[in-house]
């Protein structure tokens, strides 16, 4: 009989992906809390849609949309993750020990995504409340149309950072190749220092708050301006 402390090991070289995902969904109704998934071999849609307080360790590189729509679970990918890892995450934590491909945590509404390596283009695109910490660099068009939440980058940011941004907080330690439309550097206030310090600690990032610059919305793009009325 399985107890809550046992680790459920699933080998994707043997078990079909759909069967694994169904079992992870069913875990909401009881069963093992700790899971280890081996031989992911770049599979898409792995551990998508979990809605339970599970610990899931994926040993190896994954394909698209890993742990998308995650709720409550702590998912660790010990490797690189493909496009859209943690897409639309609602809560819980996703940690990637390697690099994340583009659109990491896209549209995420809550929870935390930590990338130990680099994240490629469009990291946090249209994010809506998720907290993202990238220990390396991020690619171009990151936080495009970002609405709320926090993006922390310990390395450098690519071109067009925060284009058409709403109210997301962006903190970058390294250089920013270019800021997108309506994204500007802003003052790092005590509130922001506290938020950044908390996230660096949770993510286990070896960086100091004062090394970061904050970027956010100039709020000229999304507010209706009567002077622009003729343009509509």
């Amino acid at each position: 009989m399985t107890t809550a402390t046992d680790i459920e090991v699933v080998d994707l070289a043997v078990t079909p992906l759909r069967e694994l995902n169904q079992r992870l969904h069913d875990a909401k109704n009881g069963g093992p809390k700790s899971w280890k998934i081996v031989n992911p071999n770049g599979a898409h849609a792995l551990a998508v849609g979990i809605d339970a307080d599970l610990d899931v360790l994926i040993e190896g590189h994954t394909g698209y949309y890993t742990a998308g729509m995650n709720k409550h679970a702590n998912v660790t990918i010990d490797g690189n993750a493909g496009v859209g890892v943690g897409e639309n995450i609602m809560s819980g934590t996703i940690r990637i020990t390697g690099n994340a491909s583009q659109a990491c945590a896209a549209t995420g509404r809550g929870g935390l995504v930590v990338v130990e390596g680099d994240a490629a283009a469009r990291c946090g695109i249209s994010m809506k409340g998720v907290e993202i910490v990238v220990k390396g660099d991020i690619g171009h068009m990151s936080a495009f149309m970002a609405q709320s939440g926090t993006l922390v980058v310990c390395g450098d940011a690519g071109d067009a950072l925060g284009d058409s941004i709403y109210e997301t907080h962006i903190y970058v330690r390294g250089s920013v190749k270019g800021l997108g439309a309506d994204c500007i550097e802003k003052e790092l206030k005590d509130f922001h220092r506290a938020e950044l310090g908390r996230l660096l600690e949770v993510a286990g990032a070896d960086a100091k708050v004062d090394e970061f610059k904050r970027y956010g919305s100039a709020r000229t793009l999304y507010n209706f301006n009567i002077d622009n009325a003729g343009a509509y």
Partner: protein
Amino acid sequence: MCGIVGLFAKTPEVEANLGALLAPMLHEMSDRGPDSAGVAFYRNAVAAGQTKLTLQHDDATYDWDVLRTAMQDAFGAEHSIERRANHAVVIAHAEAAPVETWVEEFFPDVKIMSAGEAIEIYKETGRPEKFIETFDIQSLNGTHALGHTRMATESKVTTAGSHPFSTGLDLCLVHNGSLSNHNGLRRMLRREGIRFQTENDTEVAAGYMMWRQREGDSMQQMMDNAFEDLDGFYTFLIGTRDGFAVVRDPIACKPAVIAETDEWVAMSSEYRSIATLPGAEKAQTWEPAPATIYAWEKEKV
């Protein structure tokens, strides 16, 4: 959507098994491109003064010996020809240009897939797994190879519209993406004397590269020009006599992953096809940056 793969051998063992290693990579990309498949293998380079041609005829039972005999009469010396499904590789004892002109004139129903010293291009419509089986891709050796699975968006599903596209002697191109200004570019390139067989957008990119190389561009110059002139989305894998290069468009719209070990360099649209290679889990793996050329070349002995 399309799938592209590339494999570059760093050891004699990988060279000997290149086809057996590339075939599962290509097969894994079937979902990205179920309507056609193709490969370019660089292998068994011919001697100076000889030209290797890959020829294709729609009839799989076509009698290639007629062409071989006629070619011997025209160019002298002993010519060899080796059939592979509805393609055939002929080694001609002549420079490329006169042989290609001769084939076009006397065998107009035969299509020239590639020409050069080492390149062989095979491509066909249908499911990639069927292609792999029909062309016995596993049996091919080689120094490096490129592959493509196609999901057509811009033009018809035909053999000529499949990838790789030849872009000159020992040069070829595979493409994931779509170009939006290919009609205008095709008109411009026709004025420059570049010929086209299809309405395909990638053929225009191939023709563009042929033109830039003819004008003396290096790989870097050619791509700098391409970044300006090609409007659309692309991840390109460009095959050359001694290696290959990976380039993504300036906004990196289409996926690409590169992995490298001491034995091989692999490129694919998705990691899952690289995962089929021995040692993949320990490979250095990364995503190429936009508008940047990543190239590998065999050291010339």
